[in-house]
C-alpha cells in the first residue's frame, strides 16, 4: 500500500482553495496544505516537501514553484505540468483549466491521474462561475450608465425615452462603438460640463 500523497495548493482565494480540496479528497486519502501568501512561498513549500504542487497558471508565483520543482536539475524532472509528458491530453486539459501541476517527486502517472482529473474538473467549474459573475456584473453596470445617458438626453433635448435610446444607438453605429461606450462618454462629458 502506497503512502498518502502530500499535496500543496497555492491559491489566494479561500473558497476556491477549499473547493479544490473537497474534490481532491473524494479521490482518496491525502495530506493537503493550502498556501495563500506570495511571501516566503518557496520556503513553505520546501518545508512541506510535497509530492504534488497545484497552482493556477495565472498565478505569477508559478515561476517560484517551477524553480523548486526543478531544484535538482532540469534533466531529472519534468519541466512543466505532468509526470508523463507523453500524456498530451491531460497537459492540454490542465492548461485550458488554468492549472499547472508540478510533481516534485517521481510519481507514477496512474497515481496522479485521478487527482488531476478531479482538480481539472473543479477548476473549470470555478472559472465558469467567475466568468458568469463578471459578465452579469458588467451587464448591470452598463444598463445603469445607459439609463443615465438616456435621462440626460431626455432632459436636455426633450426626447422621449425611446428616441433617446435610438439616438444613442445611431451614434454608436455611426462611430463604430458600443452603446454603453457612447453612453459612458456622454455621462462623463456632462459631469465635466455641469
Amino acid at each position: 500500500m502506497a503512502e498518502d500523497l502530500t499535496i500543496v495548493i497555492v491559491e489566494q482565494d479561500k473558497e476556491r482553495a477549499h473547493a479544490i480540496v473537497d474534490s481532491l479528497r473524494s479521490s482518496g486519502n491525502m495530506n493537503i496544505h493550502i498556501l495563500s501568501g506570495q511571501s516566503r512561498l518557496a520556503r513553505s513549500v520546501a518545508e512541506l516537501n510535497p509530492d504534488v504542487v497545484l497552482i493556477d497558471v495565472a498565478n505569477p508565483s508559478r515561476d517560484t514553484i517551477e524553480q523548486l520543482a526543478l531544484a535538482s536539475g532540469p534533466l531529472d524532472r519534468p519541466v512543466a505540468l505532468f509526470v508523463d509528458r507523453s500524456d498530451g491530453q491531460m497537459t492540454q486539459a490542465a492548461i485550458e483549466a488554468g492549472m499547472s501541476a508540478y510533481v516534485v517527486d517521481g510519481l507514477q502517472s496512474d497515481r496522479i491521474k485521478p487527482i488531476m482529473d478531479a482538480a481539472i474538473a473543479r477548476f473549470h467549474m470555478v472559472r465558469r462561475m467567475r466568468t458568469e459573475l463578471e459578465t452579469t456584473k458588467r451587464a448591470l453596470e452598463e444598463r445603469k450608465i445607459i439609463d443615465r445617458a438616456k435621462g440626460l438626453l431626455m432632459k436636455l433635448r426633450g426626447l422621449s425615452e425611446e428616441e433617446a435610446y435610438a439616438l444613442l444607438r445611431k451614434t454608436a453605429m455611426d462611430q463604430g462603438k458600443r452603446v454603453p461606450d457612447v453612453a459612458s462618454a456622454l455621462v462623463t462629458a456632462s459631469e465635466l460640463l455641469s
Partner: protein
Amino acid sequence: MKRIPIDAGFIPLVDAAPLIVAYEMGFAGEEGIDLRLRKAPSWSTLRDMLVFGQIQAAHMLSPLPVASALGLLRGLPRLNALMVTSLNGTVIGLSSDVAETLKQAGFGFDFTDAVAAGEAIKSLPRPLRIGVPFLMSMHTELVTLWLASLGMTETTDYSIHAIPPQIMAQAVGNDELDLFCVGEPWGSVVVDNAQGALLLPGSAIWSAAPEKVLATSQDWADENPETTNRLMRAVWRASKWLSKPDSATMTAEILRQSQYLNVSAEILDRSLKGRLTINAQGDTRTVPNFIEFHNDAATFPWKSQAAWIGERLAERYHVDGNGAPGTQTVFRSDLYRQALGPIGANLPAASLKVEGALNAPSEVEAIDGSMILGANHFFDGSIYDPDQEK
C-alpha cells in the same frame, strides 16, 4: 485584404515595448497583421502558451530558445529567436539594509563600476539571497558571472531565487532577499516603495547583453515563412520608432496603461530616458544606453550571442554544450537577413562576432559597405570568441 491574426504574449516590462508599439502605433496593421496581445502572468506560463500554441509569438528571455536547443526544456519543442528586441534594460539592486551597510562602509554608489561594486558586496555576510525573475535568464547569467569573478560560488556564498518581477519589491520588503536583478520598471518600483536601492545597471556587467528576443516555435516559423517575415518587419519598425529620442514620452504613455504595465509614466520615463533614481533619498544617475531597442544593430540575432548563452547554460546545468547540434541556429540570423534586408536593415557581413571586444562603437564590414556596432565589453575585460571555443 483580410488581416492575418497573430496572438502574441508579453510580460509587463519596459522591454515588452517593441511588441506593444508594433500594435499601438500601427506597424503590425501596416504589415497586414491583426496582432492580438496577451499579458502573461509568469515566464513559465508564457513559455507554455507558446509551446502549446495558444499564442504564436512571444516577448521572451533570450536564453530560452538556446535552452530548448540544449534539451534543457525537457521534451518541449524547439523555440527560435527571430530577432533581438532589446539589449540590457535591467538593474541590480540591494535591500535597504544591505544598501545602508554599504553606505556606512563608505561605498559611493556610482552606478557604473561593477568591479568596485563587487568589492563592496564581498564584505557582506554570506550566503547572499539573490532574486531573479526566472532561472534561465540573462539576469542569472550576468549575476553569476559577476559573483564568480569575486570568487563566490553558488550555495556556499549565495543562493538564487526565482521571484516574479511584479513581486520583487514585496520580496525585498519582506526581507526575503539581499540582492536582486530585475527588468525595469520593477527595480524603480522597489526604490519608490523605499524597500531598497539600485547598485548597477545590467549594462555595467555586459554593455551589449541580448536581453529579450522575439520568439516563436521553430515549427511555426518554418511553416509560416511569409507571416514570420511580416511579424519581424512590424517589430523591427516598432524598434526603429522606439529608438527616436522623441518617442520616449509617448512610449511611457502607451506602456503605463492598465492592459500593459499599469505603472506611472514617470517611473517608466526613468528607464526609457536612462535617468534612474537609485534610492529613496532621490539621488539620480544617468546611464547612456540603459536600454537599446534598435540602434547599432541591436536587433540582429547574432549566432555568437546564442553560443555565449549556450556555453553558460551548459556549464551551469552540467550538459554538453557541443553535444547539441545547432545551438547557434536557434538565433535566426538567416530569417533576419531575408525579412529585414529588403526594408533597409543594416546587415553585417558575418553572423558571428567576438563578444566583449569593442570598448567603443566601431565600424565593421556589412553586406552593403560598412555599419556601426555599439560598444560591447564585459566588466572584467574578458573576450568571448566563438571560433576559439570549439
